């Protein structure tokens, strides 16, 4: 096993990886940009090295600087987490050239799967079903519009290098196709430095269901069952669960086999995920492979009892996978909610600010993978994921109840979060029935998101009591001197103008 590992990430995932390393007796090196100086991952690591400028490209994406740090610190291996450099083949390649173990698959595999077009072609060859679409080289807007017309609508425009909804557009008709392609290309260029896009048939009642893979360097590949990730906003998962409410043993076996076939077709090693789209008739199609740890890996860990991050470390250090497919069992039902600093009623726009109070729920089978603490500044530099709340229960109904309880006991004050919104989704009758698709939020929550919910009386009372306890003397005096005849004398609620119109 490694003696020292450098974690090239921040936030909750860096914390998760550091803990796994420390439990295995591995020393950890954390890196941090100027704005992350006292964040949880920095306080937890055994050694910490500053990166300076918080701009991603100057910090967590800065390959030369990171390699230099790894060498100076004497780290034998690098764990990239997810995001940042996790799926960058150049980085994996550079590590390998400098004699540092990259904890993940080989650079070629990352490169192959990172090119969504090449990935689909490879999977088609391996006999894994793929979605009809255009993955060709004609990248001018006119040609793409023509290809799109052939595939038919609705249609998906997708950045070849993309992920997490970036550079992705759904197009309902030919009129808006050109503009969607241009915008996707622009976003992809700016995010990934590559503006190649491809087009895909957009499925009916689509679900996003993925399979977790573990593969060692001795020819053993297993899957750890599915994760249902259909609940998304802006094409970004926000609630994941396992088992999928739509899954049955036969389909699970078929999809599991396809996932293993997909991984074996590219000589995959370490942890990875095969993402499938499943339509209303339970046909499934390969969508893409994520050649890294997933954000939502904890739900698999809770239902299988397997520690995926520890296995990543063991596999990377050359150990054999001792878990056998036939011994693996899913038990119970797990749900993950992603806690974001964002405002659901304002288009899910990220919210920045300083966290004033943080109190995370706890209890049996409640897991919080968290990257936050009181007084932390949430900046616009990085992804606004604050933490992941994960629960396990004996069945789906109890898991939903537990998650709602846990969300109701999650105190994060200082930025706007999606906690309340997540509760509303979980409590929705159609969610409870398991009738979910990737359109769930758009279908059922358009109105909710524009509704005003009002300030309850108890909140008004609490605020008033708090202010009465805390307002400084001069403020109180000023209030007391207010003209008793002014219109402000009226005590109650009134409405300001109209809505805020964020066009």
């Amino acid at each position, binding site marked *: 096993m490694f003696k020292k590992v450098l974690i090239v990430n921040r936030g909750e995932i860096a914390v998760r990886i550091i803990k796994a390393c420390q439990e295995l007796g591995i020393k950890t090196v954390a890196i941090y940009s100027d704005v992350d100086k006292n964040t949880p991952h920095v306080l937890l690591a055994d050694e910490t090295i500053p990166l300076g400028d918080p701009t991603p490209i100057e910090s967590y994406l800065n390959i030369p600087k990171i390699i230099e740090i790894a060498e100076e610190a004497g780290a034998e291996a690098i764990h990239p987490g997810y995001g940042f450099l996790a799926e960058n083949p150049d980085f994996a390649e550079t590590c390998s050239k400098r004699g540092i173990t990259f904890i993940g698959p080989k650079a070629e595999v990352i490169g192959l799967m990172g090119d969504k077009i090449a990935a689909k072609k490879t999977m088609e060859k391996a006999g894994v079903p793929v979605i009809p679409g255009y993955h060709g080289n004609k990248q001018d807007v006119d040609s793409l519009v023509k290809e799109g017309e052939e595939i038919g609508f609705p249609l998906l425009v997708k950045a070849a290098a993309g992920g997490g909804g970036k550079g992705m557009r759904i197009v309902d008709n030919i009129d808006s196709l050109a503009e969607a392609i241009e915008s996707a290309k622009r976003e992809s260029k700016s995010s990934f430095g590559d503006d190649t896009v491809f087009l895909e048939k957009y499925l009916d009642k689509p679900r996003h269901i993925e399979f977790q893979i573990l593969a060692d360097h001795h020819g053993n590949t297993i899957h750890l069952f599915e994760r249902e990730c259909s609940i998304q906003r802006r094409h970004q998962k926000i609630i994941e669960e396992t088992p999928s409410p739509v899954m049955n043993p036969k389909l699970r076996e078929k999809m599991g086999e396809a996932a293993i076939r997909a991984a074996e077709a590219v000589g995959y090693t370490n942890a990875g995920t095969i993402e499938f789209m499943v339509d209303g008739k339970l046909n499934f199609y390969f969508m893409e492979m994520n050649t890294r740890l997933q954000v939502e890996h904890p739900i698999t860990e809770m239902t299988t009892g397997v520690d995926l991050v520890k296995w990543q470390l063991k596999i990377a250090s050359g150990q054999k996978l001792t878990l056998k497919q036939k011994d693996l069992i899913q038990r119970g039902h797990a749900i993950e909610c992603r806690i974001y600093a964002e405002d659901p009623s304002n288009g899910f726009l990220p919210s920045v*600010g300083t966290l004033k109070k943080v109190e995370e729920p706890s209890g049996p089978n409640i897991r919080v993978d968290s990257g936050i603490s009181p007084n932390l500044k949430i900046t616009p530099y990085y992804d606004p994921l604050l933490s992941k709340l994960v629960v396990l229960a004996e069945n789906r109904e109890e898991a939903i109840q537990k998650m709602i309880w846990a969300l109701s006991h999650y105190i994060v*004050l200082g930025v706007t979060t999606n906690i309340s919104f997540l509760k509303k989704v979980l409590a929705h009758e159609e969610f409870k029935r398991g009738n979910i698709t990737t359109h769930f939020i758009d279908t059922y929550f358009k109105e909710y998101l524009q509704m005003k919910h009002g300030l309850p009386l108890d909140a008004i*009372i609490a605020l*008033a*009591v708090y202010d009465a*306890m805390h307002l400084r003397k001069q403020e109180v005096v000023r209030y007391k001197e*207010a003209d008793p005849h002014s219109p402000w004398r009226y005590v109650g609620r009134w409405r*300001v103008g109209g809505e805020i119109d*964020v066009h």
Partner: protein
Amino acid sequence: MFINYEHENSVYQVGIEKRNNKFFITYDNTEYQAEAEEIKPGYLKIKIGDKLIKAVVTEGEKEKYVFIDGEIFRVKPIPLTGRRMSTKREEGDLRSPISGRVTKVSIEEGNKVKKDDILVVIEAMKMEYLIRAPYNGVVKKIYVKEEDQIEIGEQTVEIAKED
């Protein structure tokens, strides 16, 4: 003493007095008598008759947050001496919905634009936000240039309406 809280564009006015360790809260023509204890900074236990309210209150830079009954509310206290603050957007006033970086300015002052034309692109947290023309018109003023940092609520462009 009277305090005003703004929440979702509504203003809540409440009166509160402290006498002999009791709080007298007036809201919507009703008076509530409360006993209250701050068990640790911001953590309140408030008793009104048999009812117990547990809340956590904290102050941000410009707003207050209250956690109550599993829900979090953000309010803005409004100074009593101030005037009504309109939070309604004026037509043609295109403020940034987010703090981020201006990655593209597609227009120049004097340009004619059509409703829904993209005027400015702002990137924040790896996402792209498009500021579009709200109606046909002429670009009157541009407040930003490419690569600018922009704060939430800052104005980007002014468009003079035309038909």
